[in-house]
């Protein structure tokens, strides 16, 4: 299992994501600079959190034009697995690889808190069997308010594309949605940070379970490995 973590100018959770996979799960992990046009060998592409290009325009709106995004799109089209965390989720939405959009928190303030999340049954990898009914993950964002039109929402729900919902909605997201997948089931995005929930002193170690659930799409045996 090989992991590639993208680095945009302004990514600041790139090391966090790196250590989730490299230290938390002990998997071979490397960075891919945004000016690259090739991903190299990668079973999972992680788009990490941060403020790509400062996010002065709209979160992720510039990053989607980075040279590396062509390769990411090809990876997705070939069925490759992608996980976007926080700003990574925003970038994947802007790039059209995930449905919906993320706007300013309803409080108009940044929020850094640890949230209880309800796990949805969202396909063969990400579900209550692999994760249990509830997990706890930190959030840290100013623009995590998930929005989608009525038709889009309906198809999200019918196709079981919602991954996680906030138990106590911190940002005004529609349907308390904290994370979604694409219709095909190989692209995952979430505002909460599994990359801040894997060390012994973190508020939880549920980040490891989330990482494994995503990887289990191609490597079901990972769910049986001990922590």
């Amino acid at each position, binding site marked *: 299992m090989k992991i590639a973590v993208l680095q945009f*100018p*302004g990514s*600041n*959770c790139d*090391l*966090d994501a790196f*250590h989730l996979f490299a230290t938390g799960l002990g998997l071979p992990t490397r960075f891919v600079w945004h*000016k690259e046009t090739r991903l190299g060998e990668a079973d999972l592409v992680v788009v990490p*959190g*941060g*403020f790509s*290009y*400062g*996010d*002065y325009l709209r979160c992720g709106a510039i990053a989607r034009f980075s040279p590396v995004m062509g390769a990411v799109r090809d990876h997705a089209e070939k069925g490759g697995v992608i996980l976007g965390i926080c700003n990574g989720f925003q970038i994947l939405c802007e790039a059209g690889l995930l449905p919906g959009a993320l706007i300013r928190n*309803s*409080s*108009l*303030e*940044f*929020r*850094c*808190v640890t949230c209880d999340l309800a796990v949805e049954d969202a396909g063969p990898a990400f579900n209550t069997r692999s994760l249990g009914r509830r997990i706890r993950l*930190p959030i*840290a964002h*100013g623009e995590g308010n998930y929005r989608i039109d009525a038709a889009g929402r309906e198809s999200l729900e019918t196709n079981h594309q919602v991954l996680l919902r906030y138990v106590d909605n911190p940002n*005004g997201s529609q349907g308390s949605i904290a994370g979604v997948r694409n219709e095909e089931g190989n692209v995952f995005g979430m505002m909460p*940070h599994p*990359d*801040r929930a*894997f*060390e012994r*002193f*973190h508020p939880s170690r549920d980040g490891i379970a989330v990482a494994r659930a995503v990887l289990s799409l191609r490597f079901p045996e990972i769910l049986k490995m001990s922590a």
Partner: protein
Amino acid sequence: MNRAPLPPNPDPVLNQPITPELVRKHGLLPEEYELVRRHLGGEPTLTELGIFSVMWSEHCSYKNTRPLLKGFPTEKVGATEAFGRVLVKAGEENAGIIDIGDGWAIAFKIESHNHPSAVEPFEGAATGVGGIIRDIFTMGARPVLLTNSLRFGELDSPATKRLLRGVVAGISHYGNCVGVPTVGGDVYFDRSYEGNPLVNALCLGTLRHDQIRRGKATGLGNPVYYVGAATGRDGLGGAAFASKELSAESASDRPAVQKGDPFMEKLLIEACLEMMAVPGLVVGIQDMGAAGLTCSTCETASRGGSGIEIELDRVPQREEGMNSYEIMLSESQERMLVIVQKGREREIEEVFAKWDLHAAHVGTVTDTGRMLVRQHGVVVADIPASALTDDAPVYQRESRRPAYLDETSRWTPEGSGLADLDLAGAAAALPRLLSHPTIASKRWIYRQYDHMVQHGTVVLPGSDAGVVRLRLGSAEKFIAISNDCNGRYCYLNPRRGATIAMVECLRNLVCAGATPLAMTDNLNFGNPYKPEAFYQLKECVAGLAEACRFFDVPVVGGNVSLYNESPEGAIDPTPTVSVVGFIEEEAHITRQFAREAGERLVLLGGAPSELGGSQFLGLIHGMKTGDAPGVDLGAEGRLQGFLLGQIRVGRVRAAHDLSEGGLMVALSEMLFGPERLGAAVDLSGLPAPRLDALLFGESQGRVLVSVSPAELPAFIAAAGAARVPADDIGRVSAADALTVKTALGPLEWSVPGLRTAWDTSIERAMKRPGLG
């Protein structure tokens, strides 16, 4: 030293004659102007006048405080080969550096952005964070944590709410984007800060000993590079602005407030650290902070014992037609000056091209000892570099003990006939104190800061000290950090108040399981030309220095912010202290929250008995008077040594320092952790001439700890052996009540009720209608 008169400048603005009026507007005294002429051997140009004005401002020159600061210890006496050596001392460079063992070190420093934040809270606070981060990575260190010390007026005025909202949003905007966690801080609300808030920001970074960089220009002919953002007209003369009192006209000084770009800063951090990792490439590096290009060129030349020549036409500019005065004095943010090894220009240019940043070759290191500046082929400034730095004027200001101290220091509750609390009064006072914003939970503030990025935060904001795991290559170490300063104590007794700031900070660290290592301070005071304000400054510095020496905690750097006065008067003297501590083992990390029912509660240090300077006196009786609480350094040292020893042998479940609001506030806060707990205590056996002083007095050297019942006898015995007073006052319970037996009778509160008062107070004050 004399130089030939400079050629006339084609720009008539730059060519104007230097009148006494112009000199005054630049904040220079007539005798200082004479000194300028002597250094130059003639009249300065307008550009030169501007350069002297910013370099000789208090902000850059410490002209009124330098003699005082010499009283601080800058070395750790008890340092060992493995730990605690000061590698870069206070005042030598942009930040001090201290050894934490195994070839690793930390660089840290605190700096103020008070005046900019008073005028433009969002940008003022944001650029304060940006500036202190640059001071750290310019040393070669990767920034790993931020904290801040904030002071505002009482939170009942719309103006204070606007300032708080703006400052917090500014810190949040900058720190979150740049990806450095804000792991702690302290915030006080007091009338004295009305109109003159304090915004002190601290950054800490980690580095290997061999990565330490200096702000030195050496090596004749080495190229000088300008990297980062382009120069604009923002922040013109900000250092001089920070060295004036605030007035009604200050709002029109907006151009003196800079605008920050945290994205640019993030790129600059990465590019600079990447560049510094190339062996032998960087000779010296310094950020362009206060006084921008001026300060960075003359300081690097002065430290290097060299000279520097720069060509302003090569400086990246984002506005048309800027003249040399504007370029030299601009405080545009996110810029650095780098001296590179000659012949290796391509290597630095490649690094910055990767990050899409400017890297302009603007000058050369010389051996003339002078700072020579050209624009459009004309010399606009030619000044001995040391005249701007080492030879800046130094003053010993007049000091006079303020008259109010005669009255306040003699005050006693008995003497003034202050009635003691009855049970009903005591019952009502606790929720009132808990909901005062100074004591209340700062959750509304810190939830807007990303305090978890870099995934190393162990103890989140809201406990006595922040604790962070440092990832150092393949190893890891734990450090704790705490900020402190009760300005009210410093107003009532400057020397002792400053000592208290220091010992309380140390006590917070010990409560977290840390050994104090080194300190950085931010001296926030009024106008030093007023003898009473200078007295406060002098006494506070003496009080800090005494505590530093006693506890062998050296000062590794800091900042001075004077002229903190609004039309309503000066702020309470506020020598903010921040100490970093080292935690030997992860298992020693201790929080302030009781963990389970049945734990015994032990009060260390004896029953509190003083009321002077307390929040209780201020809030319940509307008085800021009395003497500051007493400090016994010997007893404090015994207490801290004992507590740390007990934490290390695993006997302490939780520890919380008694501070604002005294015993009852500390006890309540111990119950506000993740577990829903209550407590039943009996204070009737403690010596207490007054109930108010026992419950809410702020006597120093007190800590409340919880220990398991099985460990209690050994804990009490060890305290006796260490000569530390220890009173077993009760137990943690599973009920949601806090019950207290006093000599007057029983008191009882609902813990959820107290928690709500404490937890939601600031949030309620800051609520914006209609927003979720």
